[in-house]
């Protein structure tokens, strides 16, 4: 009995937000759409938390497509962790978005897709096999398109088309991999340690081919994570979306790509299969290249949201780098970095959104160097911005610091690549400090010549304030409570390695 209830819970955590979202297209049930959306997001988050903490981790088959292919879910450890993270950030971003979206109609369409993206992200997290993962990965692309092109302007459309093209190329690569894994796998179900049919591979002498396929699949899924050859949609698409959308795009949806890569590495191929192969080395180098490029471009970029988007390119690749180390410390670092980056990047985007929202009152605050002295007008916002920056740079006690600490110690076990990686990580941290800290210092300490008489106190709406403060605080708290996360990782994910 309990099993049926828990299965239902897991299915509902995926399907409920999607249904609730699409219900928005029908005739109004609630006069005030914000009430409806808030209510539904809350219920969804509740279901997801309940599922993450209580549901059993058995395979739930929704339907069978062929004998060995099915749409199936499994609430295993990574799924639990990631869906909790998604639910937490989503509730806060939704809270924030009410005020913001008042000025950006049409509300119905935005929330319909926003809510269903919520469900689909959870679906990506608890996909039980590669088919389900691919399905939800594609759906994620299509559901986020309307979010990116929300404003329906020329730039937005162009960005959407770019986003679509890159995502599709990525998905196409993944699809090719999918076909191969279907033939060379024992089953299609995610199994810790991989489901590849090693005997078949060695008897057909096709190890190199399978490695190539894995590499291409990882690159394909990397498109969502902004990995280098397919990264350039990210700095185009994220800034044009409305701020709540860009917050989740950067904070969580890029992580969907990472989760997919994680599944391929640890559940399809298996860490043992990849350890020491050229695929590992190549991906490590690609991740490092992405880290460096992202930081460098963010450093050069003047436009505020674009700078944050470039920063995402670099920060998400930290996760890829850590994940591909294939060591316990690597996994610890990756999980910590996912959590820390999700909250701090959302916080950064939301703060930037407040600045732009504030800018609608008159001034033009789109560029990093225009923010001088803004801390006097928006103290809470800029404080949160500072907290998130601290975490992104990796200053001690913040979430980013512990993540990078584990990452570096994992990398050093790996020899020359690792040492090179640590050097890049250091440089990138410096660059991160270089592109984020000046904004904060300028905002709070505009200098002697700043004219304090023009300061107009701006009353930040309460729900925005709550969202920002909670996200900013959790950027630090992920560092403070890193020990608990590490315990969870040690108990559940380290066994994946061997």
């Amino acid at each position, binding site marked *: 009995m309990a099993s049926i209830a828990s299965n239902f819970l897991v299915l509902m955590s995926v399907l409920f937000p999607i249904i609730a979202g699409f219900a928005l*297209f029908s005739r109004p049930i609630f006069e005030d759409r914000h009430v409806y959306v808030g209510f539904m997001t809350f219920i969804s988050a509740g279901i997801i938390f309940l599922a993450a903490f209580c549901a059993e981790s058995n395979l739930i088959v929704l*339907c*069978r*497509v*062929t*004998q060995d*292919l099915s*749409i199936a879910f499994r609430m295993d450890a990574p799924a639990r962790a990631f869906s909790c993270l998604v639910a937490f950030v989503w509730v806060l971003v939704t809270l924030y978005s009410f005020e913001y979206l008042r000025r950006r109609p*049409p509300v119905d*369409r935005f929330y319909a897709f926003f809510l269903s993206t919520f469900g689909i992200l959870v679906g990506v997290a608890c996909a039980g096999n590669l*088919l*389900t993962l*691919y*399905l939800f990965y*594609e*759906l994620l692309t*299509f559901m986020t*398109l*309307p979010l990116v*092109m929300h404003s*329906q302007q020329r730039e937005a459309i162009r960005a*959407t*088309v770019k986003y*679509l*093209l890159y995502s*599709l*190329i990525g998905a*196409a*690569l993944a*699809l*090719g991999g999918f*076909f191969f894994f*279907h*033939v060379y796998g024992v089953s299609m179900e995610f199994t810790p340690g991989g489901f590849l049919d090693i005997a078949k591979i060695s008897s057909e002498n096709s190890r190199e081919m399978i490695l190539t396929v894995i590499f291409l699949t990882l690159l394909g899924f990397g498109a969502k994570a902004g990995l280098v050859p397919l990264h350039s949609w990210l700095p185009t698409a994220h800034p044009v979306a409305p701020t709540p959308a860009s917050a989740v795009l950067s904070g969580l949806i890029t992580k969907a790509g990472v989760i997919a890569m994680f599944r391929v590495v640890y559940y399809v191929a298996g860490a043992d299969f990849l350890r020491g192969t050229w695929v590992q080395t190549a991906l490590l180098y690609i991740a490092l290249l992405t880290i460096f490029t992202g930081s460098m471009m963010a450093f050069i970029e003047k436009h505020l949201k674009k700078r944050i988007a470039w920063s995402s390119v670099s920060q998400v690749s930290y996760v890829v780098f850590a994940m591909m180390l294939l060591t316990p410390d690597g996994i610890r670092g990756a999980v910590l970095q996912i959590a820390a980056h999700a909250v701090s990047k959302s916080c950064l985007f939301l703060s930037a959104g407040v600045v732009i929202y504030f800018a609608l009152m008159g001034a033009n605050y789109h560029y990093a160097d225009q923010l001088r002295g803004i801390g006097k007008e928006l103290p809470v916002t800029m404080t949160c911005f500072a907290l998130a920056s601290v975490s992104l740079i990796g200053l001690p006690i913040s979430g980013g610091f512990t993540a990078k600490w584990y990452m570096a110690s994992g990398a050093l076990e790996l020899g020359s690549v690792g040492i090179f990686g640590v050097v890049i990580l250091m440089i990138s941290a410096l660059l991160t400090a270089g592109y984020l800290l000046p904004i904060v210092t300028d905002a709070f300490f505009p200098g002697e010549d700043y004219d304090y008489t023009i300061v107009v106190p701006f009353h930040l709406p309460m729900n925005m304030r709550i969202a920002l403060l909670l996200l900013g605080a959790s950027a630090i708290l992920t560092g403070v409570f890193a020990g608990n996360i590490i315990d969870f990782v040690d108990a559940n994910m380290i066994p994946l390695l061997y």
Partner: protein
Amino acid sequence: MSVNIFAYNIPFISIFLMMLAAIITPILPNRKRIPEKLSCAVVFVNVILSAYLIYVLTNSGGSLTFNFAMGNFPAPWGNELRAGPLEAILSFAFCVSMLLSLMGNSDSTAEDIPEKRRVIFCVLVNLLTASLLALTYTNDIFTAYVFIEINTIAACAIVAVKESPESIRAALRYMIMSSVGSGLLLIAICLLYDLTGHLSMQNMNLVIKNLIANREYIMPLTVALALATIGLAIKSALYPFASWLPDAHGNSTNVSSAILSGLVLKGHIFLLIKIFVRVFGLEAIHDLRMDNIIFALGIIAMIMGSVNALSQVNVKRMIAWSSVAQVGYIFLGIGLNTNAGIAAACLHIIVHATVKPMLYAAVSGLSSAAGHSKSLHALMGTFYVNRWAGLGLIAGAFSMMGIPAFAGFASKLSLMLASFDSPVMIFSLAALVTSSVLNALYYVPAVIVVLTHDKTKPKVHMNVSMIYKISMGIFIALTIYLGLFCVTLLRLLTRGVIVLG
């Protein structure tokens, strides 16, 4: 006789039922849309009959097939029908698709075709269905030729039924290309008759096997096979010969486009499959090197169809070019030249016969919401006027892109799995993947446009008829059903292909 006497007569009954319906329609009183109701009713009866036939054939336990002599004489002397799982499933799919096309487009049919012409339209539809069923069931290649000609004339007339100058021109062009195709097919049949002395498919097969084993008449056999293939390729719009298709499908009424791309092309392709599997046999096809050519043409069609669709302004033409690409998928499956490949091709025939009429019905719903404009731009925001049509478009687009859980993915998957052991695997993989991306590049913008609010337009309200909603609902349900539960179907199709040969 491994089946009961009623099931044994089903192929004959369904063909003659359609024919009699066609013949009686002009005499009927032309009131209250009686002719249309009659067509729908007869097609519906055929749906039930072929469903029963599938049931009987798969549960009879004995041999899966039977031959039905049309008259007192068995195969080499008299005409014969042959029914097996493949034929039964395909005729079921054709009838379902025909019924849903007629129902889903009945509103736009009523608008586009005046009442007097609608009688003739119904006659033509009945004749077309009858000829498709005959093409599916026939075991005699000359009978197939005669019914192909019925099919062609009825299809051209259905294009011309709109009576606009463009549609007349398109029909003429279609007619000319089809005539070239049937001329080539006819001379190929004559050559084959001369070499084998038979017109019945299985007897031809026996002789051809002998000839190939003795290496006699290899050159004439190759030429005959090539001419028949080219002829049928022209008729089924394989890419280099497909220039007539966008004209014909883009300029006709919606129901005509739906029927043409959903059924007419498929009938010809199925005849080609019969010629390949039943007349020549797969080894002979491989010996005569026809499989690689078909495979390569299929890949070219997949890519070029999509590339051409990318630059279309008119939605109907876009969907028509997409048909060209989809025909490429089918030919790719045939070109694999294995039982699994041909079964996958048949699955794609069924998938496309479901999805394409759905797309046309959706477009007809959307464009009537947009004041009958067919340009993509004019469809902006029509989702909110006719939600059923919008949902149909989305489901169709997802299916064409190959999103899992939609019909297109199932056939892509089976095509891919069928091609895995062949040496050309990497090409088909690349083509399938590229074409999925290309499909998405024109279907997603269409979906986006339909979903985008247009603030400059006044709000339109439209009453969507119940029959439209029902047929759209069935269409969408079928699409998802095929995407999720195609495994039994695919197994049946594979068995059908094995017993066909």
